[in-house]
């Protein structure tokens, strides 16, 4: 029927970020789509990364272009759920440019506390530009490292 994105996250650890998401019910996704990894052409590495997760959860290592193709094709009679993990903000921006859209994107906290700091302390100018571009496409960012933490939208509104 259709693809439903249950979580979009930027995490340079890619699939290994799932260790922090282990307790999150969102992880009950049919697919984990890893976007922007340099490993997308190596089937052996894909197989090893797939071993991170049980066989019920399929791993897809995709380019930004491949992500759109993947999200647009679905032959399953039911809704397929997808957890998307981007390598970095540039990868999100590239995907958004190509038509990817989601309501909000999760970022792990760069440090334990971000409340009193400025985003510029944590992101490069290029990354800040990426954030601004993505926000202009009506996509919200929030900080949340583990599912136990509250979502922090405020830091991205300053």
């Amino acid at each position, binding site marked *: 029927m259709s693809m439903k994105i249950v979580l979009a996250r930027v995490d340079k650890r890619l699939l290994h970020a799932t260790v922090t998401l*282990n307790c999150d*019910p969102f992880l009950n996704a049919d697919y984990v789509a890893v976007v922007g990894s340099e490993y997308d052409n190596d089937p*052996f590495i894909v*197989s*090893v990364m*797939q*071993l*991170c997760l049980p066989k019920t959860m399929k791993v897809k290592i995709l380019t930004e272009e491949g992500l759109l193709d993947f999200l647009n094709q679905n032959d399953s009679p039911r809704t397929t759920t997808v957890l998307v993990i981007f390598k970095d903000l540039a990868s999100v921006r590239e995907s958004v440019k190509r038509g990817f859209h989601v309501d909000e994107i999760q970022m792990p906290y760069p440090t334990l506390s971000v409340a009193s700091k400025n985003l510029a302390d944590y992101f490069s100018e290029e990354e800040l530009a990426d954030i601004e571009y993505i926000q202009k496409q009506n996509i919200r960012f929030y900080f949340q490292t583990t*599912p136990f933490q509250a979502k922090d939208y405020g830091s991205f509104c300053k």
Partner: protein
Amino acid sequence: MIIDSVFKEFINVVRENKNYTIGLLNGEGDVVDCSDAALIGGHRDISSPDPYNLYYPVKAKNFDYGYLWLNGKDENLSLMGNLISDSLNIRLTYEITQSTLKQNITEDDRLVKLLLDDESFDMNRILGLIEEMGFDQTRSRVAIYIVNEQGFDNRKIAKLKLMPEGEGNLCSLLSRYALLIFKAVPENLENQQMKSYIGKFLRMLKDLDVTGDGYWIGSVQRKLRNYKESYRHCLWLKDNEKESRDKIVWFMDFLYDYFMSEIRLNDVRDVFDYYHDFGKDTDIDELIQIADSLLSNNFNISQTAESLYLHKNTLVYKLKKYEESFHIDIRGDFKGRFLFVLISASLKEYRKRRRVGEEL
């Protein structure tokens, strides 16, 4: 052990690539499993890695599973070693978490079953299990009964246990469609504070996608023996408050209705039947309406008359007639008022049964 089955999966994948051999070593360096079966039983010197043999500790949730051994002549051996090692440790963490969750929920199920057991409530078994689980029995708890007609996802319920808000709670799927949570609550909360506290918890459940078609909140209980009463109060609400779909229904809002429902109204009717037969011309519907209105107006005659659009004297006249018929003092005596409400409730029940065609 979890490591055995997980490592077999890794072996199967690595066997597809002839450049590498992986093995699982125990703490002493003995090969306990390997993608090359001929090497099982051999020994490796963990403290002396070389460009062709790398060793990585296998550790998950503070438990040591030995070492991962990677052998190969590939220039990317180190990169591959890190990848396989990370994947193995992450997978083990995942499997242990899942296993712990299942164990937790099973223990909760067992305890809830014992607590709700009406026929053979066994406090010794309950206390034994509580000690085993490390369950804090000194806390007060309230039953939350949630029904979802589509059925609950067991995995989401299990994961609820890991949330900070899940701490101290007992959580059990009584069936695919019914979830019972004994929620730990702070002491001495006022009614409104309690609603706010539980409401926040239910919003957290919704965030977890644990939603229901109805939510029934029982009475707060401290004694383990009374937990089933809190659950029973939820069931009473579900059966008696029909307008509760998609709403949160609080037992404490229906105490009066609950206790009225616990009174054997047939007894009341039997007691007053003789008098009632005398007043054959009594309009039952009107009597019930007047009793309900008196109750909601704290038996204030003027306010009751106003809400019924009656002149005060007309209402007094009707009340006098009831007083004469049933030999009770409705206007001046608390006991008389109470009995009048009981008579009304018994007549309400009588009317309901007559409407469904029961022979009376």
